C-alpha cells in the first residue's frame, strides 16, 4: 500500500486537541442561552404524590420548569425494552433519578430553583440486591410492571447446545467456581453535556456528547413527538465514551424539550457526581461457571449461570445478558455449551454497555478456570489453551461464523516476549506471571432496530477545488475513526491526507451510521468509505480514460498524481479533477455496508453474530506483598489480532488504554453502593489508576488479514480489555498461590485469601 494505510498516523484533529481549540459540547456558547439543572430523587423507590412548583417558579431568572408528566413517552436504546421516561412519572426508581428540570438564566439560579421545588413521596419497598429481585413481590412493589412472573426479573437469556451438564459430569476433570464482580463505570474524563437550540424554522439542533447521534435523533423524535426530519443531532468532539454515551439520555431529551418550550438555546452540563449517577456501566455480576476437560486437556463442556444486576432500567441489558453467555464460545472450541443469564431490576442507577460489553466478567471466570484445569492436569496453561483454540474459518457450536483468527500467533508472541517458558512457575515467592486469551465481536451483524437500510452509508464528495469531503455518521469519540476515514479515502484516491476532509456525525448533513458501539466502526464504516472512494476513483478513471483515450485499467493514483506506468498519462490530481467534473460540477459517490446473513435458526441465534471476531492473548507480571496483600502489576504483554492495523498508532493506543482500564477493574475500581447510592461518585474514591499505578506495557499487533474487513481490518477497541483482568488474576496465583474469585482484587481480599490458605 502506497498511501497512509498501515502507517502510524497522528489523528487529523490532534493539533486542535493539543491547542485547546477542539470544541467539546460544553464549549459551545450561544447568545441568550439558558442553563438546566435537575431535581433528583432522594428515594430509592417511591410514589410521587405531589410536586409543588410554585415557589420555584417565582424565583427571578427561572424561565421554564418541566416534570415527568410533560414527557411521558417511554424510550430505551433497545426497542424491546422502552422502559424509561425522560423524568420520573408517578414514581421514582432510584436515588438520583430526575424528577424535575429547571431552565434558568444561570446555573446558580437553576440550582436554587431546584431546591425550591417541593415533592411529596410515598416510599415503596425497595429492591437493592439481585437476590431480592428474584423473589416474588406484589404488583405494586414491582419496579416495572412488565417484569416476569411477579418478580423484578428483567430478562432471562439462555441458550443450550447439546448437554453441557452431562458432558461436564462425565469429564475426566471439571472445575466449578462462583465469581463476584463489582460494578464499574466508564470514567471518561468529559462529563455529559448537551446544548439544544430550537430554531425559528421549527427545527431542533442538539449538540451533545454522544456515541449514537442516530439513536438520539430517533428517540428525540419519539418522545418529543417531532418528525425525524426536523431534528439535527451533532456530535462535536467527544471526551471519551467507552459505552457510557451510547444510550439516548434523559438529559438530552429534557434539554431539548426546554429549548422548545422557551424558544431559547439551553445548555446542560453534568457534574462529575451526576456522571456517576447516570452510570450505564458494567453490571455487578455473580456467576457460577463449570468447565470440564479430558485428560489430554480438551475442553469437554461449559455451563454457566449468571445473575447481572441491571439497576432500574433496561438500557442495553438484554444484549448484555446474551453477551455474558454467547461470547464464551471463543476462542476455544466447546461443543457442549450452555448458559442462563438473569438480569434483575434493582432500585439503583442503571447499568448498560461498557467497553468489552457483557463479556469481560465471564472472560475472567473462564480464563481463571482454564488456569485451574491446566494446573490439575499439570499442563502449561499456554499449552492447554493452544490445544483448544478454534481454527480459522469455522462455526462455533452456536453458529458464530469465525473467519480470520490470529489467536495462536497472539499467544506465541506474548509467550516469547515475556520469556514465559523460562519464567512461569519459577519466579521468586510473591512474583508471578499469568496468561489469558480474549475474543470479541467486530461489529454486531444485526442492527438494534430492524429495518431495511444498510448499517452505514458514506458519501464522498469531489468538487472543483480538488478537495474530497467524506460525509459519514460515524462518531469519533477518541478512537480515531475520523482519521481512519481520511486514511482510507486518501489511500484509494492516491492523494495526500490533507486533501481529504471529513464532515461527520451530524444527522442533517451526514448519512446514517448507527453509532460507535460494539466495535463496529472500522469494519463497517471503513468498508463503506472504501467502497465509496473506489466509486469516486472509478468516476475519475472513466472520464479521464475517455478524454485521454487510455485504457482504464492502466490508470494509477499516487502522490496526488494520476498516471500510467509508461507515463503516457501523467497529470496532477487537480487536472484529473477538472476532467472528471467537466460539464457537471461536483459529484458525490456513496458506499454502504450491509452485514452478510449469518447465524442459526433458533431463538436467540442473533446474539453475538458478527461479520468477524477479534482475538488476543495477554500475559501479565505481578508482585504481591504477602504482608499487606497489595498487588502491583509490573508489566503487561498484550498481543491482539485486529486483522490489519490501518493505523498502528491508534491500535496501540486502544490496546494500551484497554490495559489501563482492565487494570482498574481488576485491582482498584469498584462502584460501592450504600443503600442504593454510590458511596464513591468522585475521582478520589473511585480509583482510576494514575500514571504511577499503570504498568509497563508491551504491545504486539497481530494481523490475520480478515477477508471481509477493509484491507483485512477488524476491531481493536474493545477486544483487548478482556484478557487483561484474568491475566492479572492468574499471575496473582502464580505469585502467591491464591485464586481470586472476586473483583476488584483489593489488598484486603488478597490478604484474606492468603490467610485462609495457611
Amino acid at each position: 500500500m502506497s498511501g497512509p494505510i498501515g502507517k502510524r498516523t497522528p489523528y487529523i484533529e490532534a493539533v486542535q486537541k493539543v491547542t485547546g481549540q477542539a470544541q467539546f459540547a460544553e464549549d459551545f456558547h450561544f447568545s441568550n442561552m439558558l442553563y438546566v439543572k435537575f431535581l433528583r430523587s432522594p428515594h430509592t423507590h417511591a410514589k410521587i404524590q405531589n410536586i409543588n412548583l410554585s415557589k420555584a417558579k417565582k424565583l427571578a431568572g427561572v424561565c421554564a420548569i418541566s416534570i415527568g408528566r410533560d414527557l411521558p413517552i417511554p424510550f430505551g436504546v433497545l426497542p424491546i425494552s422502552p422502559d424509561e421516561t425522560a423524568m420520573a412519572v408517578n414514581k421514582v426508581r432510584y436515588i438520583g433519578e430526575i424528577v424535575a428540570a429547571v431552565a434558568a438564566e444561570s446555573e446558580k439560579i437553576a440550582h436554587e430553583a431546584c431546591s425550591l421545588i417541593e415533592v411529596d413521596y410515598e416510599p415503596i419497598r425497595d429492591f437493592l440486591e439481585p437476590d431480592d429481585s428474584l423473589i416474588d413481590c406484589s404488583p405494586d412493589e414491582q419496579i416495572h410492571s412488565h417484569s416476569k412472573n411477579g418478580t423484578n426479573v428483567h430478562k432471562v437469556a439462555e441458550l443450550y447446545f447439546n448437554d453441557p451438564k452431562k458432558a461436564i459430569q462425565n469429564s475426566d476433570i471439571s472445575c466449578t467456581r462462583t465469581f463476584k464482580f463489582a460494578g464499574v463505570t466508564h470514567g471518561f474524563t468529559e462529563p455529559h453535556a448537551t446544548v439544544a437550540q430550537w430554531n425559528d424554522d421549527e427545527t431542533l439542533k442538539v449538540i451533545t456528547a454522544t456515541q449514537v447521534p442516530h439513536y438520539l435523533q430517533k428517540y428525540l423524535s419519539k418522545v418529543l413527538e417531532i418528525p425525524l426530519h426536523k431534528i439535527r443531532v451533532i456530535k462535536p468532539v467527544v471526551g471519551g465514551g467507552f459505552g457510557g454515551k451510547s444510550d439516548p439520555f434523559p438529559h438530552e431529551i429534557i434539554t431539548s424539550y426546554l429549548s422548545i418550550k422557551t424558544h431559547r438555546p439551553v445548555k446542560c452540563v453534568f457534574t462529575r457526581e451526576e456522571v456517576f449517577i447516570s452510570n450505564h456501566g458494567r453490571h455487578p455480576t455473580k456467576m457460577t461457571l463449570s468447565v470440564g476437560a479430558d485428560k489430554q486437556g480438551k475442553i469437554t463442556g461449559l455451563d454457566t449461570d449468571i445473575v447481572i444486576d441491571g439497576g432500574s432500567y433496561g438500557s442495553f441489558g438484554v444484549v448484555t445478558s446474551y453477551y455474558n453467555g454467547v461470547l464464551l464460545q471463543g476462542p476455544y472450541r466447546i461443543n457442549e455449551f450452555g448458559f442462563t443469564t438473569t438480569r434483575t431490576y434493582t432500585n439503583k442507577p442503571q447499568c448498560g454497555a461498557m467497553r468489552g460489553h457483557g463479556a469481560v466478567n465471564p472472560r475472567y471466570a473462564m480464563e481463571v478456570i482454564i488456569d485451574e484445569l491446566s494446573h490439575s492436569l499439570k499442563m502449561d496453561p499456554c499449552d492447554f489453551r493452544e490445544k483448544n483454540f478454534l481454527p480459522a474459518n469455522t462455526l462455533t457450536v452456536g453458529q458464530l461464523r469465525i473467519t480470520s483468527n490470529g489467536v495462536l500467533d497472539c499467544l506465541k508472541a506474548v509467550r516469547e516476549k515475556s520469556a514465559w517458558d523460562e519464567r512461569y512457575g519459577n519466579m521468586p515467592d510473591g512474583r508471578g506471571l499469568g496468561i489469558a486469551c480474549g475474543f470479541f465481536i467486530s461489529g454486531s451483524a444485526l442492527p438494534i432496530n430492524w429495518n431495511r437500510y444498510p448499517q452505514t452509508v458514506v458519501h464522498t464528495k469531489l468538487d472543483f477545488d480538488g478537495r474530497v469531503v467524506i460525509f459519514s455518521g460515524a462518531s469519533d469519540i477518541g478512537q480515531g475513526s475520523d482519521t481512519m476515514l481520511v486514511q482510507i479515502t486518501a489511500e484509494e484516491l492516491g492523494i495526500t491526507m490533507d486533501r481529504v476532509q471529513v464532515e461527520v456525525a451530524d444527522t442533517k448533513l451526514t448519512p446514517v451510521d448507527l453509532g460507535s458501539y460494539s466495535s463496529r466502526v472500522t469494519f463497517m464504516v471503513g468498508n463503506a468509505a472504501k467502497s465509496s472512494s473506489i466509486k469516486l476513483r472509478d468516476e475519475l478513471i472513466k472520464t479521464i480514460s475517455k478524454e485521454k483515450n487510455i485504457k482504464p485499467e492502466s490508470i494509477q493514483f499516487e502522490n496526488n498524481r494520476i498516471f500510467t506506468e509508461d507515463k503516457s498519462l501523467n497529470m496532477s490530481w487537480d487536472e484529473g479533477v477538472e476532467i472528471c467534473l467537466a460539464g457537471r460540477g461536483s459529484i458525490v459517490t456513496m458506499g454502504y455496508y450491509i452485514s452478510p446473513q449469518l447465524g442459526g435458526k433458533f431463538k436467540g441465534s442473533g446474539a453475538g453474530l458478527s461479520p468477524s471476531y477479534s482475538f488476543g492473548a495477554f500475559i501479565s507480571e505481578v508482585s504481591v506483598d504477602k504482608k499487606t496483600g497489595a498487588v502491583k502489576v509490573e508489566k503487561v504483554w498484550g498481543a491482539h489480532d485486529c486483522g490489519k492495523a490501518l493505523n498502528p498508532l491508534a491500535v496501540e493506543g486502544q490496546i494500551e488504554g484497554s490495559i489501563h482500564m482492565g487494570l482498574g477493574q481488576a485491582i482498584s475500581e469498584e462502584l460501592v453502593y450504600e443503600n442504593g447510592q454510590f458511596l464513591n461518585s468522585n475521582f478520589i474514591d473511585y480509583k482510576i489508576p494514575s500514571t504511577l499505578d499503570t504498568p509497563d506495557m508491551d504491545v504486539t499487533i497481530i494481523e490475520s488479514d480478515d477477508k471481509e474487513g477493509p484491507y483485512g481490518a477488524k476491531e481493536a477497541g474493545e477486544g483487548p480489555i478482556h484478557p487483561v483482568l484474568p491475566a492479572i488474576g492468574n499471575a496473582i496465583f502464580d505469585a502467591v498461590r491464591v485464586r481470586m474469585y472476586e473483583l476488584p482484587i483489593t489488598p484486603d481480599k488478597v490478604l484474606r485469601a492468603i490467610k485462609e490458605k495457611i
Partner: protein
Amino acid sequence: MSVKSYLKPQSVTDALIMAKTHANYLYFAGGTDIQVYLKQQLIKPDHIIDLSDIGELQNIASNDENISIGSMTTLDAISKNNSIYKDFPLIVEAAQSIGTPVIRKTATVGGNILVNNRCNFYNQSFGWRQAIGSCLRDVGDLCQVTKTSGKCFSRNVSDLAAALFCLDAKVIISNQNEGLELSIVDLYNQDGIDFHKHLDHDGILTKIILPIDAGSTWFKKLRIRNTLDFSSLTIAAKVYDNRNFRIGLNGVSMSPVLITGNLDMIDLEGIKSLARKSCKTVDNDMMPLKYRREMIDVYLDQWWVSIQK
C-alpha cells in the same frame, strides 16, 4: 448561600482585624481542602479571608536547634527546601505523599495540619447527604456509621500531623489575645466534630517549629493508588539515640494518635496494644475496617523490623 466578600490581608494583624469585624468568616490557605467543602455546601461562610498574601507566613528559617516553617509554605516548597530535606527527610516523605504534585504546589503546611476530618458519609454532595438523612456532624441527629446519636468518628487524615507528632513539633498560634505556643499534639481533639483546639479567638496557625534532633525515622501510608488518595492509615515513627521512640498514627481516629516510650521498656506487642487502644477506628473509609485495623499491626511489624537493623 453565596459568599459576600473575599478579603486579602497583608499581615497577620490585618487578618485578625478582618476576622474580628467579619462574622462567619473562613480562613483560606491553599484552599485545596476547603474548596470542596464549599462546593458541597458543607460550610457556608459569608467572608473568605485569604492568607496567601501574608509574606510573614511563608518563611522557612533555621538555626542550630530548630527549623521554623511558616504555615503558608507550600508542601512543594518544603519538599524542595535543603535544610528540611537534610534534617527532616520524614517531613519531605510525608509531604510528598499528600494529594498530587500539582496540588502540593498550592496546598500549605498549615492547611494540611488543619485539614478537615473526613468521613464517607459526610464528604458527599448536598443531595447525597439529604438522601441518607444527613448525620450528626451536619444537620442530622444520627451518626450514619454507628447509627447512634452520641458521637462523631470522622477521621483526621493529615499525613503531616503523623510526622510532626513523632518529631515533637511545636506550633505557634496568633489570635486576638496575642497568641500561644503549644505542642502540635495539643492542637487536636479526639472528637469528630470539634477536632481542633486552641484556635478560638480567631486563631491563626502561623508557624511550625521542629527541633533538630538525631534519630531514625520511618513512614508509611496506606492507600490504593500511589497518588491522589487520602490516607487510610498513616504511620510515622522516630527512634531517638536514647532509644526513646515516638509514633504518630493517623487516618484511623478522630485525631492523630501519639504513642511514645522507650524501646527498652516496651516490646512490639505492647506498642501494638497501645495503638489499638488509642485508635477509635470505625467503618467510614473506603478501605474495609478490619483491614485497616490489621494494617496497623502489619505496619508496626514492618517498622519494628526496620529498627532492628
